[in-house]
């Protein structure tokens, strides 16, 4: 029997180009699992990606895949979906891709509420170009363009997406891969725009500069740092410090467009 995972992988492209221990592979695995669980017709799934380490994920999927330009993946995807609404469209972006250069397309996709599922691989850094700050780099982190630590405030991505009107917003880490799989699946099932923030560890471009340690240490940090949203909300204020919520942030609402 052919392995499910392998069916979804473009074998010509493996092994992938990501660094040893890069969390992107775990997100990719979660995505494949979610696609499989939904039992979608593979011919009707299109994956659109931007430019960056994360964006390379499209190339590893044995589906119709579009590796577009930096920051523009959601705009390309809007064209794909509107021209052929029968397609399930999943959009893969890095944090810089989605929220720096691509921030406008992100908020407009959320506003239009077209049925796209966006997965933001948030490694807190520009991986592909070697470690510059992104709009999701936590303040005071070291980056090559912030050698003394970033002074720019980061976005809170779920808040941003909700502010723009997103009806489905989720967050998970690679450590919590089951949650991630579920959120991706629910995001795809959600009839309008869905955003999943996938917290992933980049040992090379983020970890090294910020002395975050090995890939395993990155996973452990995720384990310890993120708390399921309902549990998080029930924590006493002082215990919230140093923790961040994950899970599904927002009940699905709002009609899909056009309608």
């Amino acid at each position, binding site marked *: 029997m052919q392995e499910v995972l392998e069916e979804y992988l473009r074998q010509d492209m493996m092994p992938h*180009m*990501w*660094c040893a221990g890069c969390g992107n592979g775990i997100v990719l695995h979660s995505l494949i699992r979610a696609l499989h669980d939904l039992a979608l017709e593979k011919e009707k799934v299109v994956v659109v990606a931007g430019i960056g380490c994360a964006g390379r994920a499209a190339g590893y999927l044995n589906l119709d895949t579009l590796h577009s330009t930096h920051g523009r993946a959601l705009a390309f995807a809007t064209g794909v979906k509107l021209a052929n609404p029968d397609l399930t469209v999943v959009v893969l972006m890095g944090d810089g891709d989605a929220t720096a250069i691509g921030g406008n397309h992100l908020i407009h996709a959320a506003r239009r509420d077209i049925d796209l599922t966006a997965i933001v691989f948030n490694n807190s850094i520009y991986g592909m170009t070697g470690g510059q700050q992104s709009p999701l780099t936590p303040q005071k982190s070291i980056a090559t363009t912030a050698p003394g630590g970033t002074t720019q405030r980061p976005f809170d991505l779920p808040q941003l997406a909700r502010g723009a009107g997103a009806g489905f917003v989720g967050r998970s880490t690679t450590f919590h891969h089951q949650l991630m799989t579920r959120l991706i699946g629910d995001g795809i099932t959600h009839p309008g725009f869905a955003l999943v923030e996938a917290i992933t560890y980049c040992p*090379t471009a983020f970890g090294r500069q910020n002395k975050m340690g090995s890939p395993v240490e990155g996973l452990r940090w995720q384990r310890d740092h993120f708390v399921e949203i309902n549990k998080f909300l029930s924590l006493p204020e002082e215990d919230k410090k140093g923790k961040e919520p994950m899970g599904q942030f927002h009940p699905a609402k709002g009609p899909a467009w056009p309608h």
Partner: protein
Amino acid sequence: MEKRQEICLSGSGGQGIILAGQVLAEAALKSGWYVVQTQSYGPEARGGATKAEVILSDAPVDYPMVTAADLLLAMNQESCDRYLAGVKNNGTVIVDSTNVSHTPPTPTRLVSLPLTAVAREELGKEMFANMVALGVITSLTGEISLREAENALLTRVPPATTEANRKAFWLGVQLANRLV
């Protein structure tokens, strides 16, 4: 006639080849040479083969790449296989015998030294092999001031590792001296 020396340092991603190239170039510059240093990362975005080229001349250097190397350092098998043919007939090839098990036949002078093993054994870390190599090369070319090489090295390596790197360098110099 222009006196031009083409040096090619090669190895794999993590071996510090480019740093060695920079230090060599800087040392040569401070020794009064015209210098150009270039590098290439091979086709793979991460890891894979790495090459640093250094050209010294007593006149301004025009073409900045190595066309026929006077000296090749090969710190792993792949780079040895790939670059050996590019060495001049009267050139010198230094292979790191720790990583290069098989050297194809070559008309050039071949110097095989356990650079990585020396680094590991004497300094506890393989990562200092590049500076051992640097000591060997500086010594063998005879055109670059050892002092300037040491200085260049000290300004370019991370402060925490200066001592080990310095030691590695002089170990290399000794290795080379033993050859002569």
